[in-house]
């Protein structure tokens, strides 16, 4: 039933847009195999869902798997620019891959719309007119967590993250807003799976709260072990460790944890509601943060295509800057460095029937911009 209605709108939309738009070729490089493939698959599915719903046949999407290897990503980017002659690129999940690919893509005059990674270097001095970030600057969610910690009257946080650049950015972001003292600050090994030693330190530190950024399997391991350790300090973290994709694997250990996100499936607006329903209908699972980012990225692109030809770079850029699309997040606009100015929400992990998910309990930061825009000179 639902699918049929969608198909009908698609045909309708096709008739409306095909007359005006110039065909746009999109190159999507994302992680589809190996560890972390779940994120790339969600971004891809969200993006393609939006394209399908638009019914716009003037958009061609080429999807390639970067295997989470920077060198593969760089070469795929070369291929898409040189051989496929794409106009717009998107899809990269990881900051280190983004740093490898984006500067050269934008230098070659292509547009890049980031559906996930937002390294600080590309928000500040390394910003580029053709680079747009539709997700967040890397620090944003951590800053939101810091702000929430103040709100929740946390005075002595114990903070930890893996020992790599994004981890350092995370702790910096948290500290930027957090006003209390630190009970401890730890960099763990990247890929670490056992946190017994860190948990013992947390227990002994006299902390009143814990902030952590441990993406992927690291976060699952940490939360399970945290619960098992019997420490019952409040935990706060960015949405990455509490996302739909991995929440089921964490289980009860995540219940009640506060996490910060620019998106949640219960954000009350029509676009989001329709997105969650159609995503579930199409793929048979609840959408994740990453899926929403992929979906928004595609809609941003479609909105620009409706206004300008991609061949006219200046007009197309201006159209993108307007961000005239309905975001699943509600309020969305770009700052001067082409990074989002948006609300960062606080969510709590709950159980709906058998499924673990999040519900919004408040807003940590309203119309929040990143800390680097002043350094951006374009």
């Amino acid at each position: 039933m639902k699918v049929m209605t969608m198909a009908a709108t698609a045909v309708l939309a096709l008739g409306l847009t095909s007359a005006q738009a110039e065909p746009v070729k999109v190159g999507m490089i994302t992680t589809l195999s190996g560890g972390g493939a779940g994120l790339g698959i969600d971004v891809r599915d969200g993006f393609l869902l939006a394209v399908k719903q638009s019914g716009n046949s003037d958009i061609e999407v080429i999807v390639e798997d970067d295997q989470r290897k920077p060198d593969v990503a760089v070469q795929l980017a070369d291929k898409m620019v040189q051989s496929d002659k794409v106009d717009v690129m998107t899809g990269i999940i990881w900051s280190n891959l983004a740093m490898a690919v984006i500067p050269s893509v934008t230098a070659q005059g292509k547009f890049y719309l980031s559906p996930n990674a937002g390294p600080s270097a590309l928000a500040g001095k390394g910003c580029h007119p053709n680079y747009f970030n539709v997700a967040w600057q890397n620090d944003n969610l951590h800053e939101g967590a810091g702000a929430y910690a103040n709100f929740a009257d946390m005075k002595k946080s114990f903070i930890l993250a893996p020992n790599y650049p994004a981890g350092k950015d995370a702790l910096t972001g948290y500290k930027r807003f957090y006003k209390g003292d630190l009970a401890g600050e730890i960099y763990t090994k990247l890929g670490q799976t056992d946190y017994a030693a860190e948990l013992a330190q947390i227990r002994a530190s006299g902390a009143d709260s814990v902030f952590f950024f441990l993406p992927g399997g690291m976060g699952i391991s940490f939360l399970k072990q945290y619960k098992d350790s019997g420490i019952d300090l409040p935990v706060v973290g960015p949405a990455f460790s509490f996302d739909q994709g991995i929440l089921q694997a964490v289980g009860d250990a995540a219940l009640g944890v506060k996490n910060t996100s620019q998106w949640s499936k219960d954000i009350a607006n029509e676009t989001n509601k329709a997105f969650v329903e159609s995503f579930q209908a199409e793929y048979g699972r609840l959408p994740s943060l990453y899926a929403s980012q992929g979906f928004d990225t595609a809609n941003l692109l479609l909105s620009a295509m409706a206004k300008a030809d991609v061949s006219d770079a200046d007009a197309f850029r201006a159209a993108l800057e307007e961000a005239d699309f309905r975001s699943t997040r509600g309020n969305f606009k770009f700052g001067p460095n082409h990074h989002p100015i948006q609300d960062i929400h606080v969510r709590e992990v709950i159980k709906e029937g058998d499924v673990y998910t999040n519900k919004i309990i408040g807003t940590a930061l309203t119309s929040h911009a990143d800390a680097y825009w002043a350094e951006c000179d374009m």
Partner: protein
Amino acid sequence: MFLMLQGRGFMSLILLIEQILNGLQFGIMLFLMAAGLTLIFGVMGLINLAHGSLYMIGAFCAAAVAGMTGSFLLGLIAALAGAALAGALVELVVIRRLYRKDHLDQVLATFALILIFSEGTRWIFGSFPLFLDVPDYLSGPITLPGGIQYPLYRLALIVIGLAVGLGLYLLISKTRLGVQIRAGENDREMIAALGIDIAKLYTIVFALGAALAGFAGALVGAIQSVQVGMGEPVLIMAFVVIVIGGIGSIKGALIGALLVGLTDTLGGIFLPEVMKLFFDPSTATSIGSSLASMAIYVLMAAVLVLKPAGLFGARA
């Protein structure tokens, strides 16, 4: 060092003991993984890079069965059975063709098996991590003498690990299979002379090693993330363990595992603290953490430079 740390305020003797306990527990988990690896090398002379995949298979079997039945115990049994079955199958189809080949071919072939197992698992179970939790009767902390709060499950892991170690010791020293295994380690011709079916013995030993890995995967999976690729980091650690202990030696594997467990755990805590004597806290944390992540490899290189065949190794 202890005094210095005490001076920093939040390091106490209790904490130190707890961390040593953590190191031991981690070491014993590594031992479960390393025992199978070293057994397989000792008897068949095979370097099995795919051992980590069997660990992963164990965890996935446990998660799937525990998810369906709600019983952690059934999950563990499934892990043992699943990994042993996968091990026996792989031995029959691929591994037995590798015994006569050199290490180079073994490395490449078992590397290929990793690719097949990892992507195959992802194909079956999808790209998202699975759920496997500590059973209720083992969850939460208990209080040890001296007021140490320690998770019951981790204590159980220590006990199970030691029990498996003891079981292996008895198996090898007291049973008929053990006699055959020891014969296989020392003299291949002797096995034939004893009238033992070598092919069958090898399949059994490989399945046994696989079952140990799968068992470890299931036990660890309950407090970690059950996901594709979970086996590789552990595999490398297990190799570090058996190389330090001396390849083929179960005793070496146990001692190597405890050494690696303690080095890794205590290094992660103390190196950043030590660095704080020389640098400002933030730099110290960062440098100390980098050194800590290299610590076990430095340990291994140092052991090999001093004892080129490991601590208890007989042959190179």
